[in-house]
């Protein structure tokens, strides 16, 4: 097996020549990205450049205008509903806004994806919900409604809900934005723990450089609809490109 083949058999996520337009507005011009199993990739880019759109294309909330997105070696968006949902359950998505179901309590939010699985066990449910809430430090909010939570709390509940289905790939859309430094740090460590313990593959969109420094195996930078630079934190920190270096000059 050549090295290239080795790499692609290891890849759980492959984006090739992805282009995405909304009407006349072309947000993504040409995106190529391969993420292998267990890797954490941080995606940097200025606000409004299409980072969230990339994540939406990966999970199939947006259809690519051109190009392909393969997860677990399948273009699952073309599969029939049942198989598509089967693959989707293996992918977690943390929404930038949290996207909690506001007519349900925190507990019901976390239960919602589980009780709609064909093979769920009722006995494990409560302990599972409590475990995930403990992970994000919000066990005492279990019976609150989302409207009673602060922005940061909503985000953490959203993360707990994402973890309920034990996803193999997690797409984080700004997991620490709006959180205090201490909680941000905790969330960053939770992301690392998911990777270490369960071999979770992550794609993390963030502007939070301390978080990026902690979690990233590799960083890619989005500019003008293309991925302009990639490398480790240390490599990009010393980049020739002023635009790339701009992200690292935060102190």
């Amino acid at each position, binding site marked *: 097996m050549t090295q290239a083949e080795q790499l692609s058999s290891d890849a759980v996520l492959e984006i090739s020549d992805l282009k995405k337009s909304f009407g006349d507005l072309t947000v993504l011009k040409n995106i190529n990205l391969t993420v292998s199993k267990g890797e954490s990739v941080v995606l940097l880019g200025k606000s409004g450049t299409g980072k969230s759109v990339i994540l939406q294309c990966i999970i199939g*909330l947006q259809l690519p205008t051109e190009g392909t997105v393969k997860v677990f070696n399948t273009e699952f968006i073309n599969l029939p509903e049942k198989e598509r949902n089967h693959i989707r*359950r293996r992918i977690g998505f943390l929404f930038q806004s949290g996207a909690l179901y506001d007519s349900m309590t925190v507990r019901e939010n976390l239960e919602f994806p589980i009780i709609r699985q064909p093979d769920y066990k009722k006995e494990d449910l409560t302990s599972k919900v409590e475990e995930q809430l403990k992970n994000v430090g919000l066990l005492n909010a279990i019976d609150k409604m989302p409207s009673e939570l602060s922005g940061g709390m909503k985000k953490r509940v959203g993360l707990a809900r994402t973890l309920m289905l034990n996803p193999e790939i997690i797409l984080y859309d700004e997991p620490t934005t709006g959180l205090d430094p201490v909680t941000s740090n905790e969330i960053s460590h939770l992301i690392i723990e998911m990777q270490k313990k369960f071999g979770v593959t992550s794609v993390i969109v963030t502007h939070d450089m301390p978080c990026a420094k902690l979690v990233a195996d590799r960083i890619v930078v989005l500019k003008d609809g293309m991925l302009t630079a990639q490398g480790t934190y240390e490599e990009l920190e010393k980049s020739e490109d002023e635009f790339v270096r701009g992200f690292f000059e935060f102190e």
Partner: protein
Amino acid sequence: MTESAKNPSLISAVLKLPKSLEDFFLLISGISGFALKSFKEMFKPPYDISETLRQFYQIGNKSFALIAVTGFIIGLTLTLQSIPTLHKFGAASLVPSMVALAVILEIGPVITSLIFAGKIGSGIGAELGSMKVTEQIDAMEVSGCNPFKYLVVTRVIASTLMLPLLVVLADAIALVGGFIAFSITESGSFEAFLINSLTNIDMRDIIPATIKTFLFGFSIGVVGCYEGYNASRGTVSVGIAANTAVVISSLLVILIDMMMVQITSVLF
């Protein structure tokens, strides 16, 4: 000065026409596709019975009082207004059956449905619209749950089944209102009033009047869900979804009513 410069609004209105015509047909095909999908998904397992019952209860609970009051007032005023006229022809004894006929065949179903569209159609449009805007529907989608089944099918079933019940309720209360108005000037027991009013109505009238209420309920549910489910980005679109849902479903109620009258007169 040229003609077009003198009359810019007319020109632009004409230029816009093909666009809005296109939008109109897109809307029609969108709603029909959505209706078809809701209908098909209704019969596909798994069934979310508890959520359907919850919606059923909520929809009924929200519109019950409003519809009861309206029904009562309609029966009352209709009777009050027909008594003097029919008196002139010495036919006051016909008032009960005339009121019952009008209420059960036409006014009850249509007015109840219009109120239902205002109250429930807009509620569904706003609720699903805000879920769409805050990415809650997307969140269901990505967790591999079928939001169409959980959100749309449950609400469409609930409103299809609830509206006919509410119409029966409105009709019954309208008859009570009619009796109260009737007994101001005329004498007779409620029982006599009922017998008098119902003798002239037979199954050939009741069946089509009932069928159309199911259709009204279905279309109000479908349109509310369609508008909410397809709301665009931004909070403004929540209000637009609620508003459009009421406008379109009220129009549909009246259109379906008109068609049903034609169809029944051919069939029965």
